């Protein structure tokens, strides 16, 4: 509010000044920050690594400029093709991951790239109990995704591919705002 008042005053002053001067260089509008204009989408992100892993190279920019409500119709089929290429067991009838999702269902979930966040329970990407209720800083999201892609029905398949064995950040997180560690 304070800024609006200031901006109004500045614009009033400049209008008044303009009225008693022919100086074309006088400002005629607010001198506060300019927030006008239209901003057009460049990038978007929700769940980690979705665009990088599941979207084919020629479609990556298009994925970044497709609104989430239209992602499933445009990308689910591509996601399924790429998942089955990455982890061929998914192409077998009835094959599922440890969440019980087959290729079509799993990619149907992923293709709408939004990060689900619970306002009532633990917020985590996956902690063994809660699934897709948020993304906390310490969540080992890459291992979770590798497990869901390569780990099969009980996380036991392809053990060499389903865990990168980097389990934690290189600096401890803070318990309080802003939560992220100070820079190196």
């Amino acid at each position, binding site marked *: 509010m304070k800024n*609006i008042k200031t901006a109004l005053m500045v614009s009033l002053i400049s209008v008044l000044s303009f009225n008693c001067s022919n100086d074309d260089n006088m400002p005629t509008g607010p001198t506060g920050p300019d927030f006008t*204009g*239209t*901003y*057009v*989408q*460049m*990038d*978007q*992100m*929700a769940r*980690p*690594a979705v*665009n*990088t892993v599941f*979207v084919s*190279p020629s479609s990556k*920019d298009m994925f*970044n400029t497709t609104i*989430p*409500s239209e*992602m499933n119709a445009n990308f689910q089929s591509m996601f399924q093709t790429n998942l089955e*290429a*990455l982890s*061929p*067991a998914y192409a077998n009838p009835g094959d599922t991951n440890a969440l019980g999702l087959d290729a079509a269902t799993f990619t149907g979930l992923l293709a709408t790239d*939004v*990060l*689900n*966040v*619970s*306002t009532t329970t633990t*917020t985590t990407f996956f*902690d*063994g109990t809660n699934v897709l*209720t*948020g*993304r906390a*800083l310490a969540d080992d999201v*890459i*291992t979770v995704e590798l497990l869901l892609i390569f780990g099969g029905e*009980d*996380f036991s398949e*392809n053990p*060499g*591919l389903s*865990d990168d*064995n980097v*389990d934690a*950040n290189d600096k401890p*997180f803070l*318990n309080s*705002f*802003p*939560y*992220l*560690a*100070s*820079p*190196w």
Partner: protein
Amino acid sequence: MRVKKLTHKNSLLMKNLKRILGISIVLIAIVFIAADHIDAPAVQGGSSDISDFYAFQGENTNNLVFVTNMQGLLSPAVTGDASFDENILIEINIDNNADNIEDLVIQAIPRDGRMYFFGPIAPSETGLNSKIEADNAMQLVVDITPYGMDAMTATSAGITAFAGPRDDPFFMDFAQYSEIIAGNATSFNDPGSDTFAGTNVLSVVVEVPKAMLGGSGTLNTWVETKRKQ
């Protein structure tokens, strides 16, 4: 993490390895898997490139925290020179009625060393084009913390904000992943090596009372960067 304990329980052979390696050409474009770091040609390495997005319950459990990280893989040597782009709007989208269309947005954009936050507010239009809701929304301004300084935060109406360089919270053995994709290795190492160790990001953190976000238990959220036309 419980899931990790299950990983090595069994050691079935990688029967499909050859097929996986055979399609590695398809996967070369995946080489920069890193949450969303450098994910697509139009934004790669630029000031609109989102590297990561997090949403979690705050220290005050009545709040949610949204973290947007930009311009990943900053070495300490270049972090001091990295800056937010005044032509790039960061927009956190919140769908609170399960249709994957944003009902509320939180906007952040830098001006002259400060980050301006607007919202949460119902946007005047949804989708790919946005106007900054400066005339309608609650405004919160925070000084962008310079490299090497303690985090500077600002709080107003229950919302707390930060903008500035931080350690990249993302971790992954990306180098070994690349070796696997390139066909030079057949598995990860144990222990692995965090490729993102020692690197920084430009981070925007905003903590908001859950009561301002609506919904009935679950929200769908995502973040966008938008360039001024």
